[in-house]
């Protein structure tokens, strides 16, 4: 029995250790490179995400002021509707969920551990910082056309 218990606990550690570490970033990155090549080949699409957030903002604004959205020059160039990239971003959500569930990595988390160590576990402090950071980051990303 002792032997069995040890075996199980050792096995449990190995399994959880493995899931914490995931795959080598070199391997996952190289496979991502292959997905990029096939995407460009089969659908002519290069990876990107930030424009979808502007389209989402436009879609939400359309609910309250559709005529205003129609007049904004950015939305004339990039109509606020679902396109390849918008579906790509939605796919990221599902793909990440599937991988996390499959490998036992899924965890509800409000405040990241590294943040907690330095700034504490207050959700509002972290939330407002993340909100401001997100707003600034997307503005910069769109300005740089990244």
């Amino acid at each position, binding site marked *: 029995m002792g032997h069995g218990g040890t075996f199980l606990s050792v096995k449990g550690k190995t399994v959880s250790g493995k899931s914490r570490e*995931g*795959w080598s*970033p*070199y391997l*996952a*990155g*190289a496979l*991502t*490179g292959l997905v*990029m*090549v096939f*995407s*460009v*080949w*089969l659908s002519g*699409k290069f*990876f990107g995400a930030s424009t979808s957030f*502007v389209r989402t*903002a436009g879609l*939400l*604004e359309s609910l309250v002021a559709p005529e205003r959205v129609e007049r*904004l*020059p950015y939305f004339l160039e990039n109509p606020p509707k679902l396109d*390849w*990239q918008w*579906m*790509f*971003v*939605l*796919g*990221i*959500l*599902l*793909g990440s*969920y*599937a*991988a*996390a569930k499959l490998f036992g990595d*899924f965890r*509800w*988390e*409000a405040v*990241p551990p*590294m943040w907690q160590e330095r700034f504490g576990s207050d959700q509002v402090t972290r*939330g*407002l910082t*993340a*909100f401001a*950071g*997100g*707003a*600034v*980051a*997307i*503005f*910069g990303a*769109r*300005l*740089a*056309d990244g």
Partner: protein
Amino acid sequence: MKILIYGFATGILFGFLLQRGQVLRYEKQLGALRLLDMTIVKFMLSSILVAMVGIYLLFDLGLVKLSVKPTILGGNILGGLVFGVGWGLFGFCPGTAVGAAGEGRWGVLWGIAGMIVGAAVFAETYPFLKSTVLTWGNLGKLTLPQVLGLNHWIVIPVMIAAILSLFYWFEKSGL
């Protein structure tokens, strides 16, 4: 419709690989910015390495078109600096934020909401930016081989060697 399905399927694969590469963690993102953990740099450069070779091969075979964005120094430099501040505060870029939500890190929803608001502000200020910052130092659509006046198959092996040397150094330094 077909193009939307391609987008969704490609996103699922990418999200899966982002999760497996462990790059959807605040700790990994901040780890890179703090020069403590190069996981996301390894992931990004590995994907670029493979995609660079594959896409240029297909390009030479006439099977794909390149999508070169214009180099506008004003937008690229200012936008890059602004993005960096936001990335440091939030700890995620747009794509990884969505991926982190998929892993259950629901705290990122605050940042995603912020990104939608920031995006709306960008759309509002776009006409102003277009006539100012986005006219400063517009060099047009440039590629490295074009600027150097070299064939891309000379530039690509040099890039590969540089990236692999960097990887070797990361592993040697335990980054």
